[in-house]
């Protein structure tokens, strides 16, 4: 559950930023959210750990369809993918030349998180029981998410930095208690482009 929650934050914040232009407020954010049918992007993730002198770098990509399908994939250094289609969740990792299913599946918790994503997607942030939120017009425009009690054991603060180009995220910063943090930079973001439904079905 916690693992997927962490992942969902990455995904949701990226969608969130994709919906925001340069002069938005929460009302325009809700309005913009209505027009998103799909998102496709690549990302570079930098994981800063106090134990390491250099950050751990990961690269990946994701696909989202507003009908409720999601593919969140790491291409390196550990190739893995999460596929969500409707209420079905599948996790795989790539080893010895083949995709292998992960030991755990956690269908119910993922379904719950999907519901949370959908709600945020519709701009209903004020309904979240997980985060308090703040919109800063910038520049650059930022969305700041502060977890409520419980989740704050794992995440201290999330900051979404928006690009000057409407609908495009620049990066997401996730801070954890104890000084570790994660930075995710998005690139080649495509809003409402078309892609094969197979990306949600096969690893």
């Amino acid at each position, binding site marked *: *559950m*916690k*693992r*997927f929650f*962490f*992942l969902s934050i*990455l995904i949701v914040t990226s969608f969130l930023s994709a919906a925001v232009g340069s002069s938005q407020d929460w009302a325009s954010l809700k309005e913009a959210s209505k027009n998103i049918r799909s998102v496709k992007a690549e990302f570079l*993730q930098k*994981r800063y*750990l106090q*134990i*390491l*002198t*250099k950050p*751990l770098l*990961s690269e990946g990509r994701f696909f989202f369809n507003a009908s409720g399908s999601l593919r969140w994939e*790491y291409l390196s*250094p*550990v190739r*893995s993918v999460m596929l969500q289609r409707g209420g079905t969740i599948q996790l795989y*990792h790539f*080893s010895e030349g083949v995709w*292998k*299913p*992960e*030991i*755990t*599946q*956690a*269908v*119910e*918790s*993922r379904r719950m998180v999907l519901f949370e994503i959908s709600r945020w997607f519709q701009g209903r942030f004020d309904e979240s029981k997980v985060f308090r939120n703040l919109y800063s017009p910038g520049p650059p425009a930022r969305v700041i998410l502060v977890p409520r009690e419980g989740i704050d054991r*794992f995440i201290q603060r999330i900051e979404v930095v928006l690009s000057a180009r409407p609908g495009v995220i620049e990066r997401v910063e996730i801070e*954890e208690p*104890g000084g*570790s943090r*994660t930075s995710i930079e998005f690139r080649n973001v495509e809003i409402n482009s078309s892609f094969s439904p197979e990306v949600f079905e096969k690893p």
Partner: protein
Amino acid sequence: MIRRKGLDTCLLGFFILFLGCVPISETTLSPGSSDDLPDCYVIFPAGPWESVHRIEAIIKGGASSSLIGVTKGEPSERRLQSLLLTPEGFILFDGELRGGEITVRKAVAPFDSPAFAKGLMEDVVLLFLPPQVRPTTWGKAADGTRICRWEGPDGCRTEVWESKDRGWRILRQDNQGKVTREVFLKGPFVSGLAAHMELRASKPASYRLRMTLLQPSP
């Protein structure tokens, strides 16, 4: 809740599945000289180091999971810090071994039990730290395999094997002479760390850890 159950199942896989251990007969050695003694330590990093490994954990039946292992070591102090992360970067476990004591900084279920912390740190020690004492025996077997043998006060034994055809191995035996851990190391060695390692555990739980070095740093 279902995820929790899934992880619990994983934990059960690690800690409940027993396989029979295989007793091995003691290999007769032609004793080595004191000049050969440093060879007993070449597979262990000598100075401070940190590393990132891709870990594929495989339990009985072939089910597997991918993790990232981050380890930092200070051999002179026998100090190790070890983190387990999901591929997304979420920390599942963060523990430190210092002065023989284990401190768990962070652990989420099902990685939050003392048994898990103890087992994980014992595996990390086996992989990266040589026994504290001088080997009791070292030398060559009849087939040319070089073997270093450490006898513990509890009757357990650690051996390091090097053979031309099978590379490096670390064996851990219990006081019945049964192999409970076997580690296969494959080069090249980068900053004293093997590029590939596979740990096969048979007691008390049966599992395999395939580790690939992603990021070494002296």
